[in-house]
């Protein structure tokens, strides 16, 4: 969970601005994510967290600024190059976004079958069994998403991204809508994924428990700008009223 010594940058954002109509969601954001670290982006709803993560994944284009991911300038990539880059990035959605017309096996196979067409049936089955075991849900392989609990859906969503063995994991609100025990399990899984797959992760959340449990480094986003960054304790040692309010309300709500 700590920043690696050599600090190889895997994601580099410079002066990112993004506007939706009259609303400027991101106002000149600069961010570096280092190889092997878990970076938590904290912020209130509407602070631009999800927009930021979608810009990193190339799903949104910033109005200005540069986005370098794994050495590639996302804004200069064509559709094919972007698709190739995305095989190296895993994205875990807030809603899990499992394909509800497919069972768990088909959901997990989908990215593999489409991106590694040379693989045989046996290799695909092995990969599915491996990621299911990693997320602790081997028994759900033939179930439909509608038959899974919220926590199980999150795990399968993560497993679906892990099947391509990504170098970067992006988590959008991984514990949103989950009970504290299930949230704790997801936090453990995020740490396990980082250790086992040696991924660099960006975790978008407003959940301080999740931030504390997973974040080697925490940045706080407010009104489109970063207020603070550092360890969890360093960020919340601030005297800034916005940081203090966020901390206090979060724990009052959790309690």
């Amino acid at each position, binding site marked *: 969970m700590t920043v690696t010594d050599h600090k190889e940058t895997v994601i580099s954002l410079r002066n990112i601005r993004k506007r939706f109509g009259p609303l400027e969601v991101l106002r000149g954001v600069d961010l570096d994510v280092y190889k092997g670290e878990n970076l938590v982006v904290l912020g209130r709803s509407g602070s631009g967290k999800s927009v930021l993560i979608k810009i990193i994944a190339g*799903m949104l284009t910033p109005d200005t600024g540069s986005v370098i991911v794994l050495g590639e300038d996302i804004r200069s990539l064509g559709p094919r190059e972007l*698709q190739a880059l*995305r095989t190296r990035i895993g994205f875990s*959605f807030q809603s899990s*976004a499992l394909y509800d017309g497919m069972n768990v096996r088909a959901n997990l196979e*989908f990215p593999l079958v*489409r991106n590694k067409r040379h693989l045989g049936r046996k290799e695909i089955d092995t990969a599915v069994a491996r990621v299911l075991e990693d997320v602790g849900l081997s028994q759900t392989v033939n179930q439909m998403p509608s038959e899974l609990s919220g926590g199980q859906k999150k795990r399968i969503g993560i497993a*679906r991204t892990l099947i*391509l063995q990504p170098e970067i994991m992006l988590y959008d609100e991984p514990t949103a809508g989950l009970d504290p025990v299930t949230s704790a399990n997801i936090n453990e899984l995020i740490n396990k994924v980082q250790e086992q797959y040696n991924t660099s992760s960006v975790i978008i959340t407003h959940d301080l428990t999740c931030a504390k449990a997973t974040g080697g480094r925490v940045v706080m986003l407010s009104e489109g700008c970063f207020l603070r960054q550092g360890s969890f304790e360093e960020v919340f040692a601030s005297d800034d009223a916005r940081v203090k309010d966020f901390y206090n309300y979060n724990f009052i709500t959790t309690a």
Partner: protein
Amino acid sequence: MKAFFLRMYDIYRFALRFFQEAFVPPYEYKAIWDQFFEVGIRSLFIISLTGFITGLVFTKQSRSSLAEFGATSWLPSLMAIAIIRALAPLVTALIIAGKVGSNIGAELGSMKVTEQVDAMEVSSTNPFKFLVVSRIIATTCIVPVLASYMGLVGMLGAYLNVHTNEQTGFYLFFQAAFVRISFLDIYVLVFKSAVYGFTIGLAGCYNGYNADQGTVGVGRAANTSVVVSMFLIFIEEMIIVTLVNNYLK
């Protein structure tokens, strides 16, 4: 008015993107094949039933008028003209618009609002090609097949009525029926059914793929897909019939 033209421009761009993506590899053979099954096989029962009833009832209703002039022997050719030239493509298209168009709108709309389309995109899959191109190709190819099939089943319904009343033989009925039908009629049936199929696929996919506002948006996408498809099918029918009658006959 400005919003209307902006919408039209957006639909034009969507259709243009379909043609750009449809002819560029990699091709989504499996997704297209799955959609052939969804659109074709799953619609067979309803197409068979409505086609048969349409032929049977239309013959029954026409009989009394022709009987006044002692012209019931014209029933086979009249039914062939009515079914092959007008009823089969139109009724098939309207049924598919209701059944498949609404399904496409709701399915893609649901996938859109639950981030499944985004999930596909970040899985290095082109969601437009996988979801939209496969569906539009399927509806464009399958509606002509279903319309031809409905024409045949409709003629069987007509035959049953004629046979029951006049004891006309199977061979004699179809010989009389196809006297007035030319290859041009068959070509036109296939062509306009393909146009209707394309319209159904495009309307369903456009509305579903651009759905927003949660479950309300999904319902709206399904509803709009059907209404727009049906409206456009009637407009296209009028245009194609006018063009064929004025320039090809």
